[in-house]
């Protein structure tokens, strides 16, 4: 019996001539958490799909429990005890928890009829594996992301899983939910199951993993114990460049505030919010999910309508009833969910960038010239170093980080006074994160007033010259430049 549960060596895979995986070697030990790390597009998902049998490898050798496996199909992977929990969790939002838990094994068993009692028994068995309790008859779609994830884990355990692959499981979770998930992961690990954890978040990887495999451009550049690495080395392996956190130092803060919020109150969401924002400043607003931070941002962009309090812009009280009014007042907002709220994926990059500045580009009679859009797109492509050779390509051809750059440039291509960024780097890898931060710094120093709403504390610390901490809809702390550290913020949040 081998020391390793899964050993892969010399794995190669090409798609129409492009090498997605180039001689990848890696090993998974039973009862350990192995982290597969790498930036977007480095080949992580291709590798996972080879393990789960969705793709077939071109070259290389796979050993599972010491036995050579020549060809993996999805059904065989399940039989071997390999389970993948995809990022979208593969759940059925319209079915009950019970059905979601039992349906896979019922299909595998080749049943034709539904037996409620058997389904219920299967579902209960699944939940008991990690001692998780939930209403079996609740609709899946009504659960929180964290609960959905636990259901998906329970479902995977039904198949006597020996290796569970989790594809970026923490993307949509809050800090507290991540902690709960990690507790479950450790529980599974201690019961002898190998966990392959895919992530690009440095802190998480160091917190949870025993082994780490780092990939870059289809090759694995490091594999070994996590404890042998420092976070700096880790980032270096992942991005291939030295990244040092670049603290924002405001250079020219205006004397008068551009935005002033007084006693702003939105029933059940937040109350009595007061703050000022000057040009050239980056203000951080942080707090747990449900602390009212997002609602506050939406109020400033006319998507929520507080009944009490004042918003004063450049010394004049304004009423922001809709996003259009907000834009006319030179306020920009970049939403949290860039894919659903911020981008038209099947539209050219240039069209996306110019979407909110069409009025400016209009010629007589409201006509647009296609070349103007492309020129404008190219300006931002240069400025943001968006990784594309042609802005006429669809936005969907870009990686997550580059898509985020498009969303940013869309707002910035209008003349703005205030820019609100909600979770600007959620789901973005380290390298692109750095680029986005640097850009925001530059913009602030050019005289833009920026608000960053984020629960990523390291992001807040690095970028913000002032931080407001919210809890249960109230401001519970305001920190100035030198006091901003993760420890202090954490203290206040809790």
């Amino acid at each position, binding site marked *: 019996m081998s020391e390793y549960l899964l050993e892969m060596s010399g794995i190669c895979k090409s798609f129409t001539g492009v090498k997605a995986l180039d001689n990848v070697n890696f090993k998974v030990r039973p009862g350990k958490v192995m982290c597969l790390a790498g930036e977007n597009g480095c080949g992580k998902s291709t590798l996972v799909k080879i393990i789960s049998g969705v793709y077939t490898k071109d070259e290389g050798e796979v050993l599972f429990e010491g036995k050579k496996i020549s060809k993996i199909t999805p059904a065989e992977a399940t039989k071997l005890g390999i389970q993948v929990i*995809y990022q979208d969790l593969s759940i059925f939002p319209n079915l009950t928890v019970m059905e979601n838990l039992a349906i896979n094994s019922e299909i595998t068993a080749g049943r034709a009829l539904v037996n409620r009692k058997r389904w219920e028994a299967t579902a209960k068995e699944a939940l008991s594996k990690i001692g998780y309790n939930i209403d079996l008859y609740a609709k899946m779609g009504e659960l929180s992301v964290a609960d959905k994830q636990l259901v998906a884990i329970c479902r995977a355990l039904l198949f006597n899983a020996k290796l569970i692959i989790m594809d970026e499981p923490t993307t949509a979770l809050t800090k507290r939910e991540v902690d709960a998930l990690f507790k479950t992961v450790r529980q599974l690990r201690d019961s002898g199951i190998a966990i392959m954890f895919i992530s690009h978040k440095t802190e998480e990887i160091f917190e949870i993993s025993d082994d780490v495999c780092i990939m870059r451009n289809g090759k694995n550049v490091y594999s070994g114990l996590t404890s042998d690495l420092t976070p700096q080395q880790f980032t270096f392996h992942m991005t291939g460049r030295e990244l040092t956190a670049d603290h924002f130092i405001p250079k020219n803060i205006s004397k008068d505030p551009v935005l002033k919020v007084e006693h702003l109150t939105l029933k059940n969401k937040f109350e009595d919010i007061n703050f000022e924002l000057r040009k050239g400043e980056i203000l951080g607003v942080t707090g747990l999910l449900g602390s009212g931070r997002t609602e506050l941002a939406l109020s400033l962009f006319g998507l929520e309508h507080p009944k009490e309090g004042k918003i004063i812009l450049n010394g004049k009280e304004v009423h922001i009833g809709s996003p259009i009014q907000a834009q006319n007042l030179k306020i920009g907002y970049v939403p949290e969910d860039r894919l659903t709220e911020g981008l038209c994926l099947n539209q050219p990059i240039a069209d996306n960038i110019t979407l909110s500045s069409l009025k400016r580009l209009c010629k007589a009679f409201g006509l647009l010239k296609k070349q103007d859009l492309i020129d404008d797109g190219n300006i931002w492509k240069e400025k943001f170093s968006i990784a594309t050779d042609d802005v006429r390509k669809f936005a969907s051809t870009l990686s997550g980080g580059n898509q985020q750059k498009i969303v940013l440039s869309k707002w910035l291509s209008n003349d703005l006074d205030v820019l609100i960024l909600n979770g600007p780097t959620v789901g973005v890898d380290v390298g692109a994160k750095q680029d986005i931060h640097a850009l925001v710094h530059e913009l602030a120093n050019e005289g833009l007033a920026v608000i960053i709403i984020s629960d990523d504390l390291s992001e807040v610390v690095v970028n913000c010259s002032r931080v407001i901490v919210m809890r249960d809809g109230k401001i519970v702390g305001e920190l100035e430049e030198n006091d901003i550290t993760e420890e202090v913020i954490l203290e206040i949040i809790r």
Partner: protein
Amino acid sequence: MNTNRVKRIIGRAEFWIFIALVVMCIAIQAISGGQLFEPSTVVTILRSMVVDGMFAMVCLIVMVSGGFDLSFPAIAALAYSLSCTICLNMGWCQTNPLAGFIIAVVIGAILGMLNGWIISNFKLDTMIVTLGTQTFFLGVSMGLLQLKEITSQLPLGFRTFGESYLFEVTNSAGLRSTMTTMFIPFVLLCLIVSFVLNRTMFGRALYAIGGNEVSAERAGYNVKRIKFILYTVVGAISGFIGMIRVCMARQSIPKALIGKEMTIIPAVILGGASIFGGEGSVFGTVCAVAIITVVSNSMLLIGIDSYWQDFFNGLVILIGIMISAIQTMRRNK
């Protein structure tokens, strides 16, 4: 647990549709001076529910799977027109209508297979595909085959089957009404669809595909095959319903069902089916069809000009859809 169950029942669209049906019936009963619950009226309403109700079942199973079928009336029309023409020319079905039904079901299945093949192989939007096949089927019937209306020459077997009845009722004025035998296939179809949707893995597959097609595939369902079977079965049932209609109307008119889908689909949505798939039940659908039938029949009872029927039908459907949309929005908050 118990309060949870109550909450779940109240949260379902079917519950409210049922309440709406009951409230409406009581109101109409009061306005019309007790005419609605006269045995003859009830029998008439049940009779007019048969064809629409059966079509609604077909539409329901497609919508549960996340699809839209616009072609089922066209399939039904082509199937019965062709079947009746064949029977007439061959001199079949003078006493027993069975052969005509078999022919129509087979034709329906073949036409449905065409839908299923295109949809499952080319991964196209179902609404677009069936919009195309709908026009195509009508073209086959009118242009290629030049099928004619069959009225007085309709084979006797269809006629006698259509006129047969289960029982007879007499209202206070001495007016007699008969309960058509066609009501039995309607009830059977509802029971079968309900069983298939709730108690078979195939039915659960339709809900699963309607909820999340990618997940259904990952879970191990052969989505392609399921869709092919679904549209084939839907075609076969449509052919069958077409023959029921011929028997009841005692005539075969190739163009009779044009536009039928535009009244059936909204009714199914009113009954709680989601346009995004994955939701819907037989009970809710039957209630919705009942509401619409009761409304149109009651127009006559209360003495409202028949021009207003469409107006009120549309209104009922719009209100119903808005209520379910509001419910969905509230649930998502």
